[in-house]
């Protein structure tokens, strides 16, 4: 049916063939993987790049004077260049971390303690992942900042009137906010937020863990001060993530962790810090994972974000129409600008039971509060089930989800 509106040039069969895991069966059924928002599957190009790195070009980086170490260092730094051009940043502005969570913690622990004073306020929204909430609560405990929560509207969009109120007393120094909600699918209007924050003397940190997978991100065009994402949601490996920080901000920030690679000189009396980004990369980094992330970026760039975005828009439209047509299934989040993350409840059936019964049919979704407990409560819910889409998701899989949900209703006597 709706598979007919597939984008020209977007060869879904070929894309699916790139992901070895997708041909598996689960519980004797064809796997329908709708949990890419938690972590995406890996194309062969990423797997092979990592294998090749370990088989032919592996040693520690920045340390050895030998051939292999030079190759590994080249690959690791080439990955940094790749990420820099992916975000339209300079290479000095790209810090490799373990994941988005660590990126935000790094900013809280370094920028938070050096640029923020006790009594300064940090604003986050009601639709944050715990990764962009808990580090600021910790900073509140340790450093005496004030944490403010800006409301969302019932449709799941940022409430700009409330944002005005939160900023009214002029004490806000940082707006830390998601670029795309991992529950509601809402994209936040990031250019507008950057202008809003900057006009009021605040910096902007964007949690791009979800957004970066679905849209081209240009941190210069947005004018973001900090931007974080994780490799594993972008079809890359786990264990590698990215913090972008504007150069003058990183320059002024103290180190995060201490150790090898992050120093200029060390004596017992005093050590001096390396320049960014190395100042923030203590210890042996995730070398093979950086190579994998670079391969993942090549992979999505080869498909192209216009095609990816169009594909996912078609999937999302189809999913919303299909789920809305099932009586007793309620999608949460009705933002105008929303992407391939669809959370829902089913009348009379708990989300865990929905997920277990879908799993039995080979359909993988997530259920719970999705690391956004305050948001779930704000929606008046305990938990939701969530289907999330990737480049390899098909219209037929959405139809399979809908059929699967009808069978859940049968089991529960609906």
């Amino acid at each position, binding site marked *: 049916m709706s598979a007919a509106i597939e984008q020209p040039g977007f060869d879904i069969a070929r894309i699916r063939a790139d992901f070895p895991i997708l041909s598996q069966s689960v519980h004797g059924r064809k796997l329908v993987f709708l949990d890419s928002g938690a972590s995406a599957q890996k194309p062969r190009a990423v797997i092979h790049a990592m294998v090749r790195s370990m088989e032919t070009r592996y040693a520690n980086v920045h340390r050895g004077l030998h051939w292999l170490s030079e190759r590994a260092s080249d690959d690791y730094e080439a990955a940094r260049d790749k990420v820099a051009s992916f975000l339209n940043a300079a290479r000095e502005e790209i810090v490799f971390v373990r994941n988005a969570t660590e990126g935000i913690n790094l900013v809280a622990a370094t920028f938070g303690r050096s640029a923020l004073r006790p009594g300064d306020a940090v604003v986050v929204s009601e639709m944050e992942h715990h990764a962009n909430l808990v580090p600021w609560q910790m900073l509140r405990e340790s450093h005496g900042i004030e944490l403010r929560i800006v409301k969302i509207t019932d449709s799941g969009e940022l409430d700009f009137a409330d944002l005005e109120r939160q900023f009214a007393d002029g004490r806000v120094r940082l707006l830390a906010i998601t670029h795309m909600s991992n529950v509601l699918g809402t994209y936040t209007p990031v250019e507008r937020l950057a202008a809003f924050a900057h006009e009021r003397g605040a910096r902007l940190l964007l949690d791009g863990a979800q957004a970066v997978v679905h849209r081209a991100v240009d941190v210069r065009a947005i004018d973001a001060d900090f931007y974080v994402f994780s490799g594993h949601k972008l079809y890359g490996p786990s264990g590698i993530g990215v913090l972008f920080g504007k150069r003058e901000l990183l320059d002024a920030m103290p180190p995060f962790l201490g150790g090898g690679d992050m120093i200029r000189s060390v004596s017992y009396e005093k050590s001096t810090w390396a320049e960014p980004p190395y100042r923030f990369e203590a210890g042996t980094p995730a070398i093979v994972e950086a190579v994998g992330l670079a391969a993942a970026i090549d992979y999505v760039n080869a498909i192209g974000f216009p095609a990816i975005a169009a594909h996912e828009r078609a999937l999302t439209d189809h999913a919303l129409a299909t789920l809305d047509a099932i009586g007793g299934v309620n999608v949460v989040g009705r933002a105008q600008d929303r992407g391939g993350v669809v959370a829902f409840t089913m009348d009379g*059936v*708990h*989300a*865990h*039971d929905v997920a*277990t*019964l879908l799993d*039995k*049919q080979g359909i993988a979704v997530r*259920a*719970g*509060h999705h690391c956004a*407990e305050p948001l*779930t409560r704000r929606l008046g819910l*305990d*938990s939701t089930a969530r289907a999330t889409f990737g480049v390899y998701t098909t219209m037929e899989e959405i139809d399979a989800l809908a*059929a699967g949900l009808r*069978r859940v209703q*049968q*089991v*529960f*006597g609906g």
Partner: protein
Amino acid sequence: MSGAADIGDLYQRLIMERARAPLHAGRPERFDAEAEGDNPMCGDRVHLRLSCAAGAIGEVWHETRGCAICIASADLMADAVAGRPRAAAEEMAGAFEAMVASGAVPDRAEFSALRALSGVHEYRSRHRCATLPWQALRAALTKTMETGHGG
């Protein structure tokens, strides 16, 4: 396409009945001990209240916010431990947890209804849903000791 039955083997009739219409749900006016169990991973929550006399459990009531497995487990537990000595109830908690962990049903009369939950064994991510009420029971029994109820 196959019917609903083959995917729903976990959700046996007894579980569905108790999830839909639990017999021991609610909040009594008088009780001797209470405890709460929650699973921060998913937000399931069980609030237990129980009456005790002479070292034995009288009746058990639960307020459960959670999935069908959790509600049914709380309700079947309330049946199973009513009137039992404290030590026997604690021993049953251990036996129930072992059943969920291993999938093997204890060969004893008290498990004739509880065995409906043995299928949870196949679903590792759901073990906590079934064992949460028992965890709350242990906590409530510990409190009866502290407050001197239950003798």
